């Protein structure tokens, strides 16, 4: 695979895609989706990396609008922001439609086949 030019985050959309290009950040989003809002410490404990590196990942997610942070007492609580993700889902829509059509066609083939 040829090396890619660095992604220059211009629009919010570019930022969302750049944010999603890291498996670590996708995993953070998954944790927030499945476990609801949670403190930074709880998220960081899931990853074997230095805290500053993890904070950097959170910053990228915040700037893309994918997560938001609020202070609660002495904790910083993170939550998932669903709107940009809905946009990302739309990015996959043509593929999903492709497969739904193919699987419907597969059903027609099965209906025509002799029972072996």
């Amino acid at each position, binding site marked *: *695979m*040829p090396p*890619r030019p660095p*992604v220059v985050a211009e629009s919010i*959309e*570019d930022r969302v*895609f*750049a944010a*999603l*290009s890291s498996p670590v950040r*996708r995993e953070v*989003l*998954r944790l927030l*989706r499945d476990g609801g809002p949670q403190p930074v410490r709880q998220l960081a404990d899931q990853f074997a990396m230095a805290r500053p590196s993890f904070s950097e990942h959170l910053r990228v997610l915040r700037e893309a609008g994918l997560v938001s942070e609020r202070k609660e007492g002495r904790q910083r609580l993170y939550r998932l922001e669903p709107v940009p*993700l809905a*946009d*990302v*889902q*739309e*990015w*996959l*829509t*043509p*593929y*999903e439609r*492709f*497969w*739904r059509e*193919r*699987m*419907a*066609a*597969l*059903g*027609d*083939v*099965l209906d025509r*086949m002799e*029972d*072996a």
Partner: protein
Amino acid sequence: MSQDLTTIEVDQFYPHPPSKVWRALTEPELIAQWLMPGDFRLEIGHRYTMRSRPVAATGFSGLVEAEVLAFEPEKLLRLAWRDAGEGNTADWTLTWTLHPEGHGTRLILLHEGFDPDDPLQRQAHTIMNGGWRTGVPKALAAVLATW
């Protein structure tokens, strides 16, 4: 939403036994009837090429370099799909799993490996968000139909 933000999962129930669904997934002349023609062989490491309709909105060229990665008869078939089109870096894994359900089969497809950092795929997204959605081709088709 599927388990990963870059994964598609589609499933469908067929009122046919898994053995029959398996044949439709692995016999070339049957595959050609619902997916695309290609020289498929049920053999790990077998590579073949398939040609299908391009998916314009995504930059998918329609030419696929495929490889059989794993299989378990009547249960699982895993394939690598690489887009052979120029400048397209798509490198996907397709996993078909067959689950007996009543008198039929539930077939699940997991399509993994979408790369949010792929310029083509991001461009496709931009185009779609720019209003080039299904509504446009549909409206166009409606206009053409009246000619």
